[in-house]
């Protein structure tokens, strides 16, 4: 791995919160932990902080790598680091694992101190608004009154948008990448099939599989395989796999024959090996529920009336899960509210996954916008 422009070795930190968090669902979590990483240096007036929000399967390990594993590059290492579009020489970047996650922050697989057992099915359904609330408390720990920017792709983009609505005065710029103002029925349908794969797995045990020493791997694997198909584009799959057969000839069996089958099963197995089924369910639900226009009779213009931030909205031409049309809805609502907004529609072949890819033009857009933000504060 080329680590020359990487932030280098990083390590996760942990914050304990003892003020109860009241969720949208009505549930209350008396105390919880958030695991996070930071890169770069917070300046003296704490004006150079950027919060990076993760998507469905992401976590706090956004950039750099761990000392004991040089292959453990963070999920957005191509975007964040010294001299990279989000330049850690200028910005102080925070990545965290969201509440309900399975990478160290309190979630369904954590031990509930009240019972001594994993929360499992008793862990509440978490919303994007709840996450923003918990992220604001993390910002408080650093004394960050206002983020220079909140950045996110996909579900992370939804959190970035929500920041501008929940805490309009605590965020200067919002970067909404490959996101949508709410999921379509088709999108919810995909999520429901994924959830059903998990919920009907005999090893799911109503969410309390931990104490039985099993994992609903079959369900998780199917959920991930389905999700993965929707993150790619027809073109990307055709280019990468086409109709290639692993053995070069038809086997007249139901074994793995096509390369795409092999790839999806590998991805499914890998994911089922480390991700928590309850977290997957909870993340998809957060996606389905996000809809800031809901309180305003479906009027997104009215929902964004609260926003004070400047926006950069980015979409990708082959992203059909969060298509450019959906990003343009966000842009329209911002225009109607006279917000400062720029919108870039990036030509890319990688579908929804494009937001994670190394792409020169995409990175130029983000770099140009971040340079503008950097001009607003003194390092």
């Amino acid at each position, binding site marked *: 791995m080329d680590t020359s422009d990487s932030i280098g070795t990083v390590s996760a930190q942990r914050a304990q919160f003892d003020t109860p968090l009241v969720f949208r669902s009505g549930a209350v979590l008396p105390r919880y932990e958030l695991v996070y990483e930071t890169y770069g240096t917070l300046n003296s007036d704490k004006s150079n902080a950027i919060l990076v929000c993760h998507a469905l399967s992401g976590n706090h390990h956004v950039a750099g790598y761990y000392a004991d594993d040089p292959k453990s590059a963070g999920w957005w290492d191509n975007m964040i680091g010294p001299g990279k579009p989000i330049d850690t020489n200028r910005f102080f970047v925070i990545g965290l694992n969201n509440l309900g996650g399975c990478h160290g922050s309190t979630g369904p697989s954590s031990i509930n101190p009240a019972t001594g057992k994993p929360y499992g099915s008793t862990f509440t359904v978490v919303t994007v608004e709840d996450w923003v609330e918990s992220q604001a408390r993390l910002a408080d720990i650093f004394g960050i009154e206002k983020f220079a920017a909140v950045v996110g792709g996909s579900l992370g983009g939804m959190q970035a948008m929500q920041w501008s609505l929940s805490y309009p005065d605590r965020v200067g710029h919002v970067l909404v990448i490959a996101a949508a103002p709410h999921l379509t029925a088709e999108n919810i349908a995909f999520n429901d099939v994924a959830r059903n794969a998990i919920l009907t797995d005999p090893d799911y045990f109503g969410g309390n599989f931990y104490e039985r020493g099993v994992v609903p791997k079959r369900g998780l694997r199917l959920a991930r395989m389905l999700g993965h198909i929707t993150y790619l584009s027809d073109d990307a799959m055709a280019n990468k796999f086409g109709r290639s057969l692993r053995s070069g000839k038809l086997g007249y069996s139901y074994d793995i024959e096509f390369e795409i089958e092999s790839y999806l099963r590998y991805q499914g197995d890998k994911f089922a090996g480390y991700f928590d089924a309850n977290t997957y369910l909870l993340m998809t639900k957060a996606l389905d529920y996000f809809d800031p226009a809901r309180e305003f009779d479906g009027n997104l213009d009215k929902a964004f009336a609260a926003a004070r931030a400047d926006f950069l909205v980015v979409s990708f031409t082959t992203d059909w899960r969060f298509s450019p049309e959906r990003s343009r809805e966000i842009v329209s609502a911002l225009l109607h509210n006279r917000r400062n907004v*720029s919108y870039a529609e990036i030509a890319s072949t990688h579908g929804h996954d494009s937001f994670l890819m190394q792409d020169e033009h995409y990175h130029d*857009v983000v770099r140009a916008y971040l340079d503008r933000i950097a001009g607003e504060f003194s390092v």
Partner: protein
Amino acid sequence: MSAHDPIELAAARPDFAAIAEWIPEGASVLDLGCGDGGLLRYLKETRSVRGYGVEISGANIVACIRNGVNVIQGDLESGLSGFESNAFDYVLLSQTLQATRHTEALVREMLRVGREGVVSFPNFGHWKARMNVIRGHMPVSRELPYQWYDTPNVHLCTLRDFEKFCADLHVRILDRRVMTRQREVRLLPNLLGSMAVYRFRRGQ
């Protein structure tokens, strides 16, 4: 001096200064086909306008962001549906009219989203262009730098053509500036002017 110094910019693009003269302080402006955002930046610095650009080229999107102006990537030819009616004081179309396919629909859209429209375009009736045609060639000049086979200009017109077009569309012309290089042309403008800027609004 920086490449974006207002004085230098005005010298490089004489239509910038002409347009700026018509735009009052603090106006809201939509610049269609805004290129690298130079005009919007110029208007921001000289007139404190609030505004947005619309631009199709990815490289220009980056340039606009670097110029500190709002830019929306999109194709003018597919309309301005993302913009509300009467959202802007001025809708600008600088040196772009002649390269649009659905010119009539676009001018109508300009006057739907804006109170007034401003366009600048090269005058195909300029004597040099006429001389080119008389000599048997398509015009190639400072204002029309393309060969017939590589030009993006599909709807070139003369001043008289544009004025008739406005009359047919019930568009009321409020003001006109005709120029050659940086000098204003008052005598025989359709013959002696190489570039024109018009300001107009919906007719009664």
